[in-house]
């Protein structure tokens, strides 16, 4: 039925009779319209936007097919679906918008894909306490649009904002492009509601803070569907920014730029956007800025209350000049703003046979440059790599996120080349003392380095997984919580 489409890392699946029987039982919970065993829906939800999926798509391959897709409309329906699956030991892979980039939504062992798209209501806008409560399937751009219409912002703008969901942000521990001002998703979230595999519903307190033991609901941040399903989120919101200021500077070296942003953050400045590009990316993004030729561009967007914005602008200007930054004006910031959601090059390159990816890692200031140097060198040493560039895009008083872009043409098998450059990047990152991930999560592929990253902690995480999901039904094979039999380094 699936023509010549090949599911190449599928570990198990049901017989057509078994999936039809399961669909009938699920229809009793969510109605006939809420269930599908059609191949069109199975193919549509068999993957996310892990760049390797694009390569496989061109090759006519898919990773693994679910047997049944279910679209619940409420927490109660999610609980009933999970209870049924748990009772029968059927795998469940939660699916938001499928915008993840590491294979987290691939249903390796078939079973049920639980699609949250119909759970997209805004449940409460709390103007006095600056909070909003929404369902997980709400599209990111529509979430922000809703808030803007009411005079607020959600402050969370991942590059995927137009194609991702609130639930997905939480499940993979996301960060938005304005995160220095508004925080990452773990800073923005107030409380979660989630359903455990046995159908138990847990809820966190919608309070600014508590000192009442560990927060069980927040365990779901970054869990990527391996512990249960997030069914509701309460998030902080902000008044729509009163003022925005755009600054940019070109530096002779990446180190000078790093010094400036470290000092801004350590002095208490919180520019919403901080992006420092290496030589290659500066040349690629800002060819029209004469002062940036042969230099490294720093782009800053400062926004919020006008008094605070003025103070932050002054701080940034002084520190940039101290490091001999050349003022490039507002144009580079506008350029970034216009292009920030444009990922068209990725499609074009994959169509032309390239293999590419982005890898974001976290370093402290004392080795932020070394990590870049070592990862870039390691990536360029992999045969076939044509480009390895980087920028720093989320910064803290303690360090920064380094975001590497890799593009190459495989000398042989594309998947093998992909694995080789990832291994080179991860090894260089770990050897340099950085953390292997900043905001894309782990999914299937980066999960392979969990042991090196987490050490003993991984054993504890596995015990937590075992306690909450003893039958191992939730998104099996991800985060290295169990072995993915057909996907290894």
């Amino acid at each position, binding site marked *: 039925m699936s*023509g010549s489409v090949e599911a190449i890392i599928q570990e198990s699946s049901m017989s057509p009779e078994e999936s039809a029987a399961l669909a009938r039982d699920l229809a009793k919970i969510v109605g006939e319209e809420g269930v599908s065993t059609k191949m069109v829906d199975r*193919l549509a939800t068999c993957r996310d*936007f892990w760049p390797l999926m694009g390569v496989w798509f061109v090759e006519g391959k898919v990773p693994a097919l679910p047997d049944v897709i279910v679209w619940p409309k409420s927490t109660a329906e999610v609980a009933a679906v999970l209870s049924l699956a748990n009772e029968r030991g059927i795998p469940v892979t939660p699916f938001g*918008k499928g915008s993840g980039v590491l294979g987290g939504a691939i249903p390796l062992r078939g079973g049920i894909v639980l699609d949250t*798209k*119909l759970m997209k209501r805004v449940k409460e806008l709390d103007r006095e306490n600056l909070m909003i409560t929404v369902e997980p399937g709400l599209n990111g751009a529509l979430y922000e649009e809703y808030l803007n219409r009411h005079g607020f912002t959600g402050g969370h703008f991942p590059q995927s904002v137009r*194609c991702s969901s609130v639930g997905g942000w939480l499940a993979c521990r996301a960060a938005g492009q304005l995160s220095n001002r508004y925080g990452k998703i773990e800073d923005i979230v107030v409380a979660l509601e989630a359903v455990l595999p046995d159908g138990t519903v847990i809820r966190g307190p919608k309070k600014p803070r508590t000192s009442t033991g560990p927060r069980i609901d927040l365990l779901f941040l970054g869990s990527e569907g391996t512990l249960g399903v997030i069914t509701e989120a309460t998030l902080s919101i902000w008044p729509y920014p009163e003022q925005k200021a755009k600054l940019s500077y070109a530096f002779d070296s990446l180190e000078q730029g790093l010094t400036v942003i470290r000092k801004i953050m350590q002095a208490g400045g919180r520019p919403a956007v901080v992006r420092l590009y290496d030589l290659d990316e500066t040349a690629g993004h800002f060819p029209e800025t004469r002062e940036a030729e042969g230099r490294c561009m720093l782009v800053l967007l400062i926004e919020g209350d006008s008094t605070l914005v003025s103070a932050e602008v002054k701080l940034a200007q002084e520190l940039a000049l101290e490091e001999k930054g050349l003022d490039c004006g507002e144009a580079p910031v506008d350029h970034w703003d216009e292009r920030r*959601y444009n990922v068209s090059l990725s*499609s074009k390159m994959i*169509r032309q046979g390239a293999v590419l990816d982005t890898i974001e890692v976290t370093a402290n200031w004392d080795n932020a440059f070394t990590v870049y140097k070592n990862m870039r060198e390691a990536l360029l040493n992999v045969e076939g790599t044509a480009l390895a560039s980087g920028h720093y895009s989320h910064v803290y008083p303690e360090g920064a996120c380094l975001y590497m872009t890799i593009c190459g043409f495989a000398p042989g098998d594309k998947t093998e080349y992909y694995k080789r450059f990832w291994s080179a990047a991860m090894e260089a990152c770990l050897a340099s003392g950085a953390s292997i991930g900043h905001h894309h999560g782990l999914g299937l592929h980066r999960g392979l380095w969990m042991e090196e990253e987490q050490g003993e902690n991984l054993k504890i995480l596995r015990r937590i997984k075992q306690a909450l999901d003893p039958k191992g039904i939730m998104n099996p094979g991800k985060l290295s919580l169990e072995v993915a039999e057909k996907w290894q380094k």
Partner: protein
Amino acid sequence: MAEIDRKLLLDCALCPNMCRCECPVDQALGKEAVSPTGKARFAHMMLEGQLPWSEEFVEAVYSCVGCKGCETLCPFEGLELAEELRLVRLEAARQGVTLNSVQPYLSNLKKYGSPYGSRAPLSEEARGSKGAEVLVFAGCTTVANNPASLEAILALLDRAGVSYQMVEEYCCGYPADLWGDPELARQLAKENVRLFADSGARKLITNCPECWLTFKRRYPEWEQELPLEVVDGTAFLLELVREGRLKPAKVEGLEKVAYHDPCVWARYEERTEVPRELLASIPGLKLEEAAAAGKATRCCGGGQMFQLASPAGSEAIARRRLAEFPAGMPIVTDCPFCREGLKVEGAEVLELVELLQRACCGGSGR
């Protein structure tokens, strides 16, 4: 005949759905298969022979309302996804697959020249003045669903002293072209061109944006040379108001309306001011804008005749769109599909010509 741009379609299929927030089908139905990228992926896979041409997969490429919402965010230069999907549907038809839900309408088109079935002959009054310069093209959807709006435009023309005529028109060809039967579309177009030429009219006015778009965009592609100028009905009426030939008066009991921009007018033609100026010409009437208005409009559920191809999907899109309008006032629009699409949940929707008739002619009389 245009050809599928396989490279652009593949670019779209490889994109992470960066426009999905503006795809009404995706947002209303919540199914990955009908996301913009989902549609492109299935189109690509069928074209590549990776999947069979079957109703199940072809349905995905029918799940487009042609609103150009995706294009407002698309970075791929030259990509018109709705247009690519139309061409894929033509290929599907060549492969023997047309969506089951549209088959009865295609049969009607072949038999009666209208997707809705037989049409009553024109009354003498509606035929107007033989040889008149202006020809009114009603459009099948207006005739089938809201003949009152046709009455309204005729009444307004009478009031303005514009001599007009109507002919026993055929469907413009739009649905046949949408649903994979270009030969039928071309035959219908040919019949219409013959009727128009015989009429001696020099100007065709229509209140159906889909008919208007078909005349403007498809007739040249089908090598059907129109012997007259095609004019947007709303714009024509606005000219009559500007010239003082129509004099709108206050409509008793109506103080506020909202306006829904049809996708064809707002996105294809980028014409958003004409209806607003016309509404502003009615004394004492205040226009309240929808949350998404003008070029940022969103589909009513009726785009590309989605009501017929997918009634439940169309209704879901309409409910979503209705939530963007201010409550407690009628919604005015100038497209028979939008009017029909938005008429769910008891919403009061009327066509702009009907409102203008009330303002210029009082009541519903001529």
